[in-house]
């Protein structure tokens, strides 16, 4: 008789998968860059794949690993389609921000307006002073003359 609880690492691996999944959820909900939202969805997929492989080890068969193989295939297809869609959206509005598409929201929801001003871009360090092109620095006159 093999009690499944004999495998000590299962719950730890499931917890790591859950942490990755929830971090991906937070990023997907909070980030406004379309590419980052998609990468966060991929992060959730990684958490799920980790669960599959952990269960595969725990059950002692390869079904979980087979599932992850299909999961990788679907993720690759999904990445290609998402990239094409994001490119089309970017060409339309000139920005990756999802909030420019908020006219697609439901009627009952209010429009989100950004009230806080964006921080100023970091000040660039002043360029080192260089001599004007074409005018070399003054050279000491050569002493020897022919």
């Amino acid at each position, binding site marked *: 008789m093999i009690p499944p609880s004999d495998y000590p690492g299962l719950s730890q691996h*499931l917890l*790591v998968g859950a942490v990755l999944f929830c971090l991906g959820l*937070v990023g997907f909900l909070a*980030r406004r860059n379309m590419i*980052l939202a998609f990468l*966060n969805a991929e992060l959730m997929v990684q958490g799920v794949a*980790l669960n599959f492989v952990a269960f595969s080890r725990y059950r002692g068969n390869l079904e979980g690993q087979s599932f992850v193989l299909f999961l990788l295939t679907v993720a690759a297809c999904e990445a290609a389609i998402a*990239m094409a869609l994001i490119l089309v959206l970017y060409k339309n509005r000139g920005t990756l*921000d999802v909030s420019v598409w908020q006219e697609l929201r439901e009627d009952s929801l209010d429009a989100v307006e950004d009230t806080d001003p*964006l921080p100023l871009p970091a000040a660039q360090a002043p360029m080192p002073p260089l001599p004007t092109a074409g005018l070399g620095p003054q050279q000491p006159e050569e002493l020897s003359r022919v």
Partner: protein
Amino acid sequence: MDPGSICAGELLKEGFMPPIGQPFSFSFAEGGMNNPVALLPLGAVLAAAFGLFLLLPSPKGGPRFLGYLIVIGALVAFVASMARGTAFSIELLLQQIFSAAAILGAVFLVTQANPARAALSFTLVVLGTSGLFLTLGAPFLAAANVIVYAGAIIVTFLFVLMLAQQDGPSDSSSRSRDPFMASLTGGLLLFVIAHTVTGDRDRFSVVGNQSNPAPVMPARVVEEQSGRLDATGRLAIPAENTAFLGADIYRHFLIGVELAGVLLVVATVAAIVIAQRHTANFPAESSEVKA
């Protein structure tokens, strides 16, 4: 012994898995609400979620140092708790290192304002999970994960980011949408999942515990699996991972393999059709525009 012959349907039939449709009982009875120790994990998860909230990009700028302190503390506590109750082993140490790398990369991915840095930190997540795949006896998947994600997906996304990147702060990278509610949602979901996986009173607990031992495997499964135990008494999986994985896929999921191929072709065609300039397809329309 056929490595992949146990399917979920048979397990359900033989009473190994809990039947679907039973009422889900979730309660803090047995002194849970009155017991502060039982609520400690909830507090820890919510504190980590608050640290994540401080780290999410916002134009106001918050105490990011405090956020880093909380999140790193929570990560260290989580990784240290993985070693609880087990003797030290190299496997455990590797598992801790890879888990920490994956979670740290995930935190950077969620909180970095610079999209290129965030995409690169996703590589760290992929490397961490691939390392965990290795410790779980899945070397082929570890390699495939690195090749497909780090090698293909990240690089293509960095390429698109380069095309669309704007200098300095922008609406898309320096602002978050409802960061507080988002991190609260993630924290609560994480607490519920963690409680389900490890909880003491939950009869859906996967790993079992004292008051509610994990379900016993049916006799047929145990008989098939006896003689496949490794040195630590766990179920062994074949060392020839790739060969057995290929045999498993073609034996049990042949139609799935064919469908995956079809899906890849369709996705390729669809990506080309979606991304190309549509004006080139309609010469009549574009000539009207010229006229």
